């Protein structure tokens, strides 16, 4: 298929599964269509614990957002926000600081429209339709500029999104561009699907799950942990480093009953000096 020219408006095809809506389904939401549920069921067949992975991802994000708010950060940029089923950044943040500003970014027109509806009337949260693969367009988006002041610290959330950027998309270059726009004191939150060195059989499952995403417009790229750590270039990687999501500063010690699949999602938080 030929490349779409840049001037052509993005098309809407709800016959193609969307990662946002598949994720919503994992989280028990009904913001999805049969095509999404079909894809989700394929993932679940390979990785039955996928909803738990999503839950752990949300929980980690929640802890990271609280950490950032605790540092006094009152500006949040959540790229790849998807469909805000519940427990979103602005809900977590506004519970702590109702004056804090949150900008969501997504490239899925349906997710953008849904967010727009959910956030309607909220003066401190907005949605920008932009693509992470063009980070400058994210930074330059009028909505981003309206609510965020890049001269002050910002919490940048790249939660479960970088694994949808291929090496051709220059994922590391994208993060570097965003990093360069951030003021000192900003934090970077990343969660990422990884290939783990210790459990090959699990990896097979995860790979099979990843294969399902090939049918969406955004295939899933599993990266080894050092590659994930490399995203924090230019940041001080905070303790405990890049670790399985439930292990990142848990509120209570994680139990033994965590599904091993959940441990393939890694998380880390960096602080820009």
């Amino acid at each position, binding site marked *: *298929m*030929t490349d779409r020219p840049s*001037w*052509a*408006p*993005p*098309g*809407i095809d*709800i016959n193609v599964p969307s990662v946002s*809506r598949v994720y919503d389904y*994992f*989280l*028990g*939401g*009904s*913001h*999805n*269509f049969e095509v999404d549920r079909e894809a989700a069921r394929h993932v679940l067949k390979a990785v039955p614990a996928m*909803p738990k992975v*999503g*839950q752990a991802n*949300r*929980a980690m*994000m*929640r802890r990271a957002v609280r950490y950032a708010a605790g540092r006094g950060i009152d500006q949040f940029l959540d790229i790849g926000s998807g*469909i805000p089923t*519940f*427990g979103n950044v602005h809900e977590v943040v506004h519970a702590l600081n109702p004056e804090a500003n949150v900008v969501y970014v997504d490239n899925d*027109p*349906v*997710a*953008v*429209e*849904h967010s*727009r*509806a*959910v956030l309607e009337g909220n003066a401190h949260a907005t949605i920008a339709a932009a693509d992470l693969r063009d980070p400058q367009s994210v930074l330059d988006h009028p909505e981003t500029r309206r609510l965020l002041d890049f001269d002050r610290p910002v919490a940048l959330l790249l939660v479960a999104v970088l694994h949808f950027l291929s090496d051709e998309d220059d994922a590391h270059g994208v993060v570097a561009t965003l990093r360069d726009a951030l003021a000192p004191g900003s934090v970077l939150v990343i969660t990422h699907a990884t290939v783990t060195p210790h459990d090959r059989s699990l990896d097979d499952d995860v790979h099979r799950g990843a294969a399902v995403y090939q049918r969406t417009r955004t295939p899933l790229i599993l990266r080894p942990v050092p590659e994930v750590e490399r995203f924090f270039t230019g940041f001080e990687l905070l303790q405990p480093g890049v670790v399985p999501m439930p292990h990142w500063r848990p*509120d*209570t010690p994680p139990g033994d*009953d965590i599904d091993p699949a959940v441990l393939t999602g890694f998380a880390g938080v960096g602080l820009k000096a």
Partner: protein
Amino acid sequence: MTARPAPSGRGPDGTPVVRATGRAAAAEDSLARFAAIWSRAIYPVTATSMTRAEFEAHLLPLARSLRDSLHATRFDPRDAVPVGTALVAAHCTDPEALPSILGVIDAYMVLYCGPGPGLAADECRVRCSRLQHAVAVGFSQALRERTLREQESISRAALNAKTEAEIALAASEARFRAVFETAGIGIGIADLDGTVLEVNDALTGMLGNESYIRQRRVGEWTHPDNAPGTDHLNRELVRGERDHYHVEKAFPRSDGTVLWADVQVSLLRDTAGRPRYQLALLEDVTERRRLLERLRHQATHDALTGLPNRALFFERLDQALAENTGAGGTGSGNKASRKGGTGPGGAAPAPRQIGVCYLDLDGFKAVNDSLGHAVGDRLLVAVADRLRGCLTTPDQLVARVGGDEFVALYADPPDLRAVTELAARILTALSAPVLLDDRQLPVHGSIGIVHGPVGGRGAEDVLRSADITMYRAKERGGNRYEVADPAADARAITRHGLTNQLPSALRHDEFFVEYQPLIGLEDNAVLGAEALVRWSHPVHGVLGPDQFIPLAESTGQIVPLGRWVLEQAAQQAQDWRQDLQCAGRPPRINVNLSPVQLGHPDLVAEVAAVLDETGLEPTALCLEVTESALIGADEDALKPLRRIADLGVAIALDDFGTGYSNLSSLRWLPVSVLKLDRSFTRGMRQPQPDPVEVKIVEGIVSLAHDLNLTVTVEGVETRAQAEHLRALGCDTAQGWYYGKAGPADQLHKLSLADAG
């Protein structure tokens, strides 16, 4: 969801507070334990991002509500409906959650919050069951509501997104529609069959009108000027084998004229990548092409005759020489039959031949010099027209490669005979005189023919060989052709070679001067000599001025060479005067002056400098200028000659009578000597002279003497001739009868003899 006040807070019967508080604390404790069990059961199947502790805290008010409903004075199971609703709100939406929710109520509610005062155990169990039903109702209703709400919201979002996209698409379409309609370049869209679907105004304007355009499919736009091959490009495109091509193509306009367009054709595919449409962008390059063609024509054709020029001739000759496969070429039509043996197993074809006829007009320079360039030019045009008529096949070409030099190229002649026939046709075409303004101008030419196989010879080499051969034809009297012969080539003196060697010959002192005596007819005394330059060529031996002076004139070398001759001659004359110390007339020296020298700005200064350097008396020097050099000269052009005459130097009009001269001009030319061309006195070599000639010479002498000019006769070969000329009153003579040109001391001897 706030819990109602615990009924056990204070007993209605006024039970002591301490006791009541203790009971209440115990009840709260039981409630907390129920909530913990409940949380443990539900948490694993929720999607909440709350921690376990948070979730447990979240369940506590719900548990309290259940307990209060259980113990209500007026039991209403519907009080438990909001509990089910609240659980869905806490994201316990997994179908697996409901059995856990109800199972814990069923197993532990009665146990931890069970029968008390006023509530029997049986009644308690019945109530608990009904509460469970109500929770299930609340849960189901909330889940249904939530699902519908979320489905509606996502559908609306999808719809909105679609609308947004459609608006964006419409805006984009409007923008591109504007580009399409107002673009300066022509745009057309056709389907894969070539049926034209849409054209813009620019394209319509280029080709005529829209209905004219729609009459044809893409493949039907043909024009004889188009090179074959664009058809297959289009076929490849519609088959999806290429996405794009770019050609320059001719299109017939509706008014019958031709449109030349720079055409870019792109394939448009559908989202699945299948070919759908073809898009053509056309830029009108008709004018640009016309200009380029004109420039190309100008660059490759002679402005005067319109014939191909030297550049085009060499281009074609190079092509002909390169096409050594026997295929291609402009095709003479007989090639196929002649070289038919190229089939499988056939012998290798013989190498292809080429033929070149190099034509130089005989005596053209004289026409140009005597009748002027305008006449010369018209003569060339007439010759060019005749040469055009000599071409019989498309692989023949005639070009003008120099002033009066033409070349016919025969790219693929069947044999030598065909080439000599072409040369013969040319000579025949030139055999009739050219009529210009009632004047019959005879034209003849000499042709050098080269014929041979291609390969191994460069174009320059071929042309040089033809040039040399042409000179052979000239040497043999002209008006004929000769065929190149390598042995003859090697001996031949080429103009090209000599021209190139002139500068170094001058540096290497290869020139020398000979002197032909000038005799006074009155007393046969030696009056002086004419200086004649010779070239002692290291290969070709001694060359006369006829062989190299025209070359030196055409390259400007005549200026330094002429000056050198003048210096030599002046010095020699001065030497003679000093040697002789004679009392009589000191010898005079005649030096030829070329028309090119005459136009040189330093001429006067150089003559004066030579006189100054040698000490020669100006009156001892005579500069000879040809009659043709002075024809048409205006006062400005004559000024240097006048100034030289003012110095005291004599000016002789050389070759008088050959150049259709205007006798009246003799009155004002700064001339003191007429040199009568030998052709006037040929008829006087015998004792009985030609009476007409006698009359003519008599008239000229009489006229000259009336104008105070002396008359010198050239080419005196017999005693009878000398006697006649003396009788006619001619003043001086030169010729073999008196002595050929020779070294300086020869004259010395003659002069001494004469003096003696």
